[in-house]
């Protein structure tokens, strides 16, 4: 029988606020253990949480970017479970009144992925298990998270990857999270089930917990789907449970039976008041959202005439897109800019991280100046490349690198006169050309390029040379 994989995602995204969700402790990553803590975030009795408004604002920004409806009334709830990463033995989260609901995104295939809800909650502390003991660092405890819950709309790992990349990029653009999977600021639980192709009923699902890289998600889902198909084919039933991916073995293994909501004994958090969101507030927050990456990509393709590959490469890194847009100010041709960024500037960087940072000592204004010279034909592409290379290496400005002679460019008269000299001093090449060897023009062209320090437009020069030869004969 042929099977189809059905997946839904719960994605935790750590928000880039300065402080934790309910206290003024810093959210900075790392630090000595238990040094970003206070009585509130280690849950001492008698302390009162107070909600950080930036968390509400960021969650609404995320919701609006993912086409969600924003709740008029939301509230916080206690999710009870006993585990040492939670000092209070409950997590403050949202149960039945989350901030955002009913959103969606569209994949490149045109398929829509539904966003069920987005809620805010506090992160747990970090546990290190060693020698049969557990060491606890509560620095991360109380760092604000949003949990983005999708509908079970995924049918392939590629769709999952595209969705997660989309979330990552969107959250980075709107500035609510850096979404670094390797640092845990984006983590993902994947619900996986299989069913016969054509069936409209869902199979029993298992939940793969805390996936922290795209490659592991792909491996884990592939393994888990095959495992479930084996179970079904052998006449048994898939058990609903939580499983973890074993990186070393490339397999998934059972962690515990699946909890249902009632296992968590959710109830209203009595220490926090209702969140009420007005329309005015939503409109104020909407203004904080910049142009979203998917819009940018289609603008770059349709309006700027870039290829899809180039457009996606530029938009993938917000700082690169910002640099690109400032650099093309007042220009007519945008490809020169994208070509230089992709061929020259990107090659300076080795890691994704470095592209993300986009730390270069060229200002967009300087890039703009260079591109204007290129567009006007004052300098040729090779000169532009050389100049930009030097700018990147030394931080010098365009005018410090190009001589006055370079900046004058080459007039039509000058070019024609040099082309005439090329024809005069190469009688053999002229004879060859006239004898039918088209390639003979190249040696005369070489003469022109040499005598113009590469400033000549090769195509134009070639045309002039041929015209001169034809006129002479």
């Amino acid at each position, binding site marked *: 029988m042929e099977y189809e994989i059905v997946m839904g995602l719960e994605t935790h995204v750590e928000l880039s606020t300065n*402080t934790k969700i309910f206290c*003024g402790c810093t959210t900075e990553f790392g630090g000595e*253990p238990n040094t970003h803590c*206070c009585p509130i975030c280690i849950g001492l009795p008698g302390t009162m949480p107070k*909600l*950080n408004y930036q968390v509400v604002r960021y969650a609404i920004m995320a919701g609006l970017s993912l086409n969600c409806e924003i709740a008029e009334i939301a509230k916080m709830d206690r999710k009870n479970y006993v*585990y040492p990463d939670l000092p209070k033995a409950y997590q403050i989260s949202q149960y039945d009144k989350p901030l955002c609901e009913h959103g969606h995104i569209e994949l490149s295939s045109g398929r829509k992925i539904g966003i069920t809800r987005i809620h805010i909650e506090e992160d747990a502390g970090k546990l290190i298990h060693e020698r049969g*003991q557990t060491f606890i660092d509560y620095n991360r405890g109380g760092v604000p998270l949003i949990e983005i819950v999708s509908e079970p709309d995924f049918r392939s790992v590629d769709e999952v990857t595209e969705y997660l990349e989309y979330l990552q990029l969107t959250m980075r653009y709107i500035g609510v999270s850096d979404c670094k999977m390797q640092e845990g600021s984006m983590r993902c639980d994947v619900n996986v089930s299989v069913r016969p192709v054509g069936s409209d009923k869902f199979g029993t699902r298992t939940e793969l917990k805390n996936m922290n890289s795209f490659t592991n998600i792909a491996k884990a889902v592939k393994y888990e789907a095959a495992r479930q198909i084996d179970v079904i084919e052998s006449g048994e039933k898939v058990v609903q449970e939580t499983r973890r991916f074993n990186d070393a073995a490339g397999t998934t293994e059972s962690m515990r039976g699946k909890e249902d909501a009632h296992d968590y004994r959710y109830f209203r958090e009595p220490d926090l008041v209702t969140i009420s969101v007005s329309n005015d507030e939503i409109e104020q927050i909407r203004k904080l959202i910049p142009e979203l990456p998917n819009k940018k990509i289609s603008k770059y393709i349709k309006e700027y005439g870039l290829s899809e590959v180039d457009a996606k490469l530029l938009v993938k890194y917000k700082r690169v897109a910002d640099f690109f847009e400032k650099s093309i100010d007042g220009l007519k041709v945008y490809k020169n800019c994208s070509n230089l960024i992709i061929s020259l500037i990107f090659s300076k960087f080795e890691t994704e991280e470095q592209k993300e940072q986009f730390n270069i000592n060229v200002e967009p204004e300087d890039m703009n100046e260079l591109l204007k010279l290129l567009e006007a034909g004052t300098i040729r592409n090779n000169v532009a490349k050389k100049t930009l290379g030097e700018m990147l290496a030394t931080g010098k400005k365009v005018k410090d690198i190009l001589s006055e002679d370079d900046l004058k460019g080459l007039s039509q008269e000058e070019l024609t006169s040099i082309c005439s000299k090329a024809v005069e001093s190469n009688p053999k090449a002229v004879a060859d050309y006239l004898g039918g060897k088209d390639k003979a023009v190249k040696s005369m062209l070489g003469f022109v390029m040499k005598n113009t320090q590469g400033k000549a437009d090769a195509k134009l020069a070639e045309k002039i040379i041929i015209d001169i030869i034809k006129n002479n004969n």
Partner: protein
Amino acid sequence: MVTREELLDLALLSKLDISDSDIDKLLGDMEEIIKFADTINAASTGDAEFDNINDLQNVYREDIVKDSFLQDDILRNCKTVENGFFRVDNHNHVE
């Protein structure tokens, strides 16, 4: 009724050392505390729907960092501490 065993269990879970001479007095105190909940339960709220007693909404703080506590102070209440970490030795509760 709170029993002697329940009180001692509670003390153990709360990591409190209780001397035998205190037990009778504490049993009385616990009884009073639990009775207080009965008083609240008995209050008639009618059909009134209220969200919280002060009728408050949208109580927020600004996102401004304050000094955290010193590591020593954070760990002060914990008996098992190592290298700045809280340490849990009874791994019954931990996977």
